[in-house]
């Protein structure tokens, strides 16, 4: 439960900039290690937590803060209610928050805010929409074996031929962090890596003061599946570099993992910036240790149409001018105009599919920020 100040019994909050617990009331500060003595349950296997649940999406979050924020970090709805006090298994370790709220907000603004960012989203980038969550991870060592059948392209003279390659190998992985909560999708939690485990501390719940946390709710089988997929990604990204061909792709693969004894249960610090835009929930994550920003921010559509429309009009006018130039001008400049018109035509026709593919890729990346892509909601969202 919440630890109180030795001097005045005020509430203590962990300050990432100082790496100390601070009392807002009297200004006193303490090292989490020193406070442990006061906490009667420090060395027991379990610790008490206050579990809050979102009535809208079903997400659970833990906080010692009795004035828990009313907005759900996952779906952005004001439906958070206190659910119960529960004993939780004490994690083995934790990486304390190092990036402050101010730094996290600055990082988001610097990395993601562009002239296309809607004003409403910019206005939502406030401290109250940014929440620090300790996300449960399992850090594991594993032996990994993979076999791949790969297709790639090579050039023979001027023609391109498809060739096949086979690779099989094994490797030992150390300290791979695997997200242990079902709600955060693995392809998102993966992007928060790497975490620097050298800065890990023995678990002490005093670090949780002022932050939220989640409990690991995955089973061993689920963890094994996530770990196999994560190792497959690390392995295959590296393996594909050994293929002497262009556009090397895995055609078929099979992989196996053996997780060593006792994965380590750890809490990793993550800042969540959650907001709603045009009635959709969005979330941007910031690694609370390294400051790595994960996610994107939607664009002001009007602004995008303006740009596209402007370019369209400019090319249209140029083209019509060139065409009318060809029809009405003298033979001398005719050739030159003709050439530029043809060049523009060829470029325009080639640009069409490239533009479509480009827009498609961009939209795919954009959807990463949508909370539906980031989180596996327990409850189906209604309306």
């Amino acid at each position: 439960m919440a630890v109180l100040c030795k001097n005045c019994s005020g509430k203590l909050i962990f300050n990432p900039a100082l790496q100390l617990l601070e009392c807002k009331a009297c200004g006193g500060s303490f090292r989490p290690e020193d406070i442990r003595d006061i906490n009667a349950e420090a060395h027991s296997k379990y610790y008490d937590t206050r579990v809050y649940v979102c009535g809208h999406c079903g997400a659970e979050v833990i906080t010692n803060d009795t004035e828990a924020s009313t907005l759900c970090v996952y779906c952005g709805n004001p439906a958070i209610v206190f659910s119960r006090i529960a004993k939780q298994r004490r994690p083995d370790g934790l990486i304390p928050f190092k990036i402050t709220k101010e730094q996290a907000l600055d990082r988001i603004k610097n990395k993601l805010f562009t002239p296309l960012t809607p004003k409403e989203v910019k206005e939502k980038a406030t401290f109250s929409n940014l929440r620090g969550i300790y996300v449960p991870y399992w850090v594991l060592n594993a032996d990994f074996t993979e076999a791949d059948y790969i297709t790639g392209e090579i050039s023979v003279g001027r023609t391109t031929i498809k060739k096949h390659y086979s690779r099989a190998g094994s490797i030992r992985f150390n300290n791979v962090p695997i997200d242990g909560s079902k709600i955060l999708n693995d392809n998102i939690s993966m992007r928060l890596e790497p975490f620097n485990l050298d800065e890990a501390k023995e678990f002490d719940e005093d670090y949780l003061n002022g932050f939220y946390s989640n409990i690991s709710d995955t089973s061993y089988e689920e963890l094994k599946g996530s770990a196999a997929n994560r190792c497959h990604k690390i392995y295959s990204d590296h393996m594909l570099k050994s293929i002497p061909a262009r556009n090397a792709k895995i055609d078929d693969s099979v992989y196996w993992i053996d997780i060593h004894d006792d994965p380590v249960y750890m809490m990793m610090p993550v800042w969540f910036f959650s907001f709603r835009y045009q009635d959709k929930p969005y979330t941007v994550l910031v690694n609370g240790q390294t400051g790595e920003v994960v996610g994107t921010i939607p664009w002001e559509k009007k602004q995008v149409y303006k740009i596209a429309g402007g370019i369209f009009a400019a090319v249209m006018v140029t083209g019509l001018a060139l065409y009318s130039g060809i029809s009405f001008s003298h033979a001398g400049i005719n050739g030159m105009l003709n050439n530029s018109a043809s060049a523009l035509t060829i470029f325009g026709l080639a640009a069409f599919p490239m533009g479509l593919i480009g827009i498609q890729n961009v939209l795919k990346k954009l959807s990463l920020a949508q909370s539906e892509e980031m989180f596996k909601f327990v409850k189906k969202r209604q309306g």
Partner: protein
Amino acid sequence: MYGIPMPIVIVFAIFFWSLVSAGISLFITSLILKKYINAEETHCSIYEYSTEDINYSRKLDQVLDTEKQDLMFEYGNDPYEGKKHSIPEQLLKNGEEL
């Protein structure tokens, strides 16, 4: 002009040019958006999690189509099958709740 009525030529030219303009506009817009998307890719290399390189047991270039079957036959069984490990209580408990 080659016996095709002028208005048709003009209508066709305008239609054709709007197509070309749309292509160019689409392309340039996609480049601008790409610049603004800023989605960071994970930059975790294999060396973040391993002190060694992959130990290859098969490394064949330009193989025949039958290789795929051979490969899957040879590596299709779990080499770690039957290995027993101690599993943290929390993970076991989560499994029971399902």
